[in-house]
């Protein structure tokens, strides 16, 4: 890591740590809430970057994991509220237990659909992950007991052990989110720089070579997919606690699309970039209407006419995302230099025929 990148990260960390204090002191405590939302979405975006940026797996169904995590919170609340046992057990409102459940449920779902989806490549992978997310979406729409299309409004956030702190307190909730995001960034960093991570990246660039070298590429990919799914599940549980609401829209394809936008905006394959991407996306959404309304009353409702071209502009002129610009890098992403110019979704394309390996030849695949 270069000095400039280290400085950027340290400053960001300092800002994140001091933000609640500053906001509180200046009477802007509302922004702690907004910042917590950024952190939650950042966790989901970073987990997506782990498989997308480093594994070349463009999942267009990542919101499914977020939604599942959210529904764990919602379903537990529903059963606790109505004093109705679930699977023969009393429902819990304990935050830690629910986080763990959200991670496990999402990880299990990731394992099942990952096992199927990872047999495909490129655009097929994009679409098959979308297909499974859509199926889950329609399943939750049909789940009449848990609100169906309407979703579930939650009257309380989860409880911390012993009631020492209250998740309704903005600063508390913010630091919980920050802690979880930092923890996952740490895990992600270790994963990316481990042998496991190198195989993952190697397989993205040349699957056949990695397979020939004897690496069980399929299993490595599946493991990464499951890790990312679990983290997205945790972010979903946080999101449900944050909004005190969960509904099928958490799982919709537009939600998956927005997560991809955050990753691209921040910088693909940079791990830290999606944090900036999430921040930029949320802040643009929050402030463009306000700015427009200041320019002329009533213009705010047309805010999307500005957001669209801004996204286009960023793609056209900031090729490595915000993080690339911040750390002053015009070349390829630093954590994964091998990514420069590489097409993430290409293997199906004829011109890459030499690396396009049909799943059947994937010897590492358990049959």
């Amino acid at each position: 890591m270069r000095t400039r990148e280290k400085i950027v990260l340290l400053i960001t960390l300092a800002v994140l740590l001091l933000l609640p204090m500053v906001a509180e002191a200046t009477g802007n405590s509302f922004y702690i809430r907004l910042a917590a939302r950024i952190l939650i979405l950042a966790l989901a975006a970073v987990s997506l970057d782990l498989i997308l940026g480093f594994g070349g797996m463009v999942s267009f169904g990542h919101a499914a994991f977020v939604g599942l995590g959210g529904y764990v919170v919602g379903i537990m609340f529903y059963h606790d509220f109505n004093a109705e046992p679930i699977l023969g057990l009393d429902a819990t409102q304990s935050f830690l237990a629910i986080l763990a459940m959200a991670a496990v449920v999402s990880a299990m779902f990731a394992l099942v659909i990952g096992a199927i989806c990872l047999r495909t490549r490129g655009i097929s992978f994009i679409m098959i992950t979308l297909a499974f997310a859509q199926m889950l979406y329609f399943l939750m729409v049909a789940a009449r007991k848990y609100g169906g299309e309407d979703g579930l409004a939650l009257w309380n956030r989860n409880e911390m052990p012993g009631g020492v702190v209250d998740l309704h307190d903005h600063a508390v909730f913010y630091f919980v989110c920050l802690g979880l995001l930092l923890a996952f960034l740490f895990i992600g960093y270790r994963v990316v720089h481990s042998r496991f991570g190198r195989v993952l990246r190697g397989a993205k660039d040349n699957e056949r070579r990695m397979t020939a070298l004897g690496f069980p590429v399929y299993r490595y990919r599946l493991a990464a997919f499951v890790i990312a799914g679990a983290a997205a599940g945790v972010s979903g549980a946080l999101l449900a606690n944050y909004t005190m609401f969960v509904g099928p829209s958490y799982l919709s394809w537009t939600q998956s699309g927005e997560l991809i936008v955050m990753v691209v905006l921040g910088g693909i394959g940079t791990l830290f970039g999606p944090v900036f991407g999430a921040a930029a996306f949320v802040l643009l959404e929050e402030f463009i209407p306000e700015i427009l309304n200041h320019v002329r009353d009533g213009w705010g409702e047309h805010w999307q006419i500005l957001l669209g071209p801004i996204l286009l502009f960023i793609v056209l002129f900031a090729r490595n995302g915000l993080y690339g610009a911040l750390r002053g890098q015009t070349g390829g992403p630093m954590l994964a230099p091998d990514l420069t110019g590489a097409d993430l979704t290409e293997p199906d394309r004829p011109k890459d025929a030499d690396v396009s390996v049909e799943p059947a030849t994937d010897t590492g695949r358990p049959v």
Partner: protein
Amino acid sequence: MTALAIVQTLNGFQLGVTLFLMAAGLTLVFGIMDMINLAHGSFYMIGAYLTATFVGVFDSFLLAVLFALPLAALVGLLVEMVALRTLYQRDHLDQVLATFGLILFFNELVKIIWGPVPIFMGVPEFLSGRIMFGPDLEYPAYRLAIIVVGFLVAIGLWLMISRTRLGMLIRAGASNREMVTALGVNIKLLYSLVFALGAGLAALAGAMAGPIYSVQVGMGEQILILTFVVIVIGGIGSIRGAMVGAILVGLVDTFGRVLLPGAMFALTGSTAAQGVGSAIASMSIYILMAAVLFFRPRGLFPVKV
């Protein structure tokens, strides 16, 4: 019962050809330029809005379509030249982000020009009746016309691609882009033409959908995701695949909606199960897509290398 089955099959075809018109452009752009264009649905919307507006001016549906399509194609051309041209060499994710931005832009632009409330477009007078095929068998003439136009366009496209020089270049471009460039073809012009053609076809789909669906902001995205399902099932870059995929999706969706809720009700006798059946019906095309991709990852008609 057989009459009903025939009518439902026609309904499936009608949805299918609408999807085909959308899918044809998208699959060519995807296959030849290797470009994922999420804003394709915007041309559908623009086509519908322009046609509805021109119907108000000329009081003739055909004349309106005649004016709307080239204009929509022109919008496509402009978008291609101003924004998308530089994206061909980028990876798919950049394209997704940029064209997502375009969707937001076009939706808001249409809302500013035409207002947020859906606008009206009537069925053309000469197609407002119903055609009787038999005692129990009648079908709206307009929907039948959509099916006919859809199939005619499909045949036309097939002829163009298999018989003309432009078609040859398109085929060559879809399977080997570098070769076309090496042949000294003006690749920029080819790309622009294909893009405008795709935009025009999407606008045609929108124009024809206008009289039966509401013409409103965001109508493009409702059909966009189905269109992606179609081209992935059919095989990217393949017109034949787009046709087969579109008809398949049209039929599966129609019959899923008609049969599943009733079947669930018959099986369990509860209205709750009926709701589940309706949910599974919504999932049916995604189940179809997942199954196709699982067994044939490149779709039903992969473009040969």
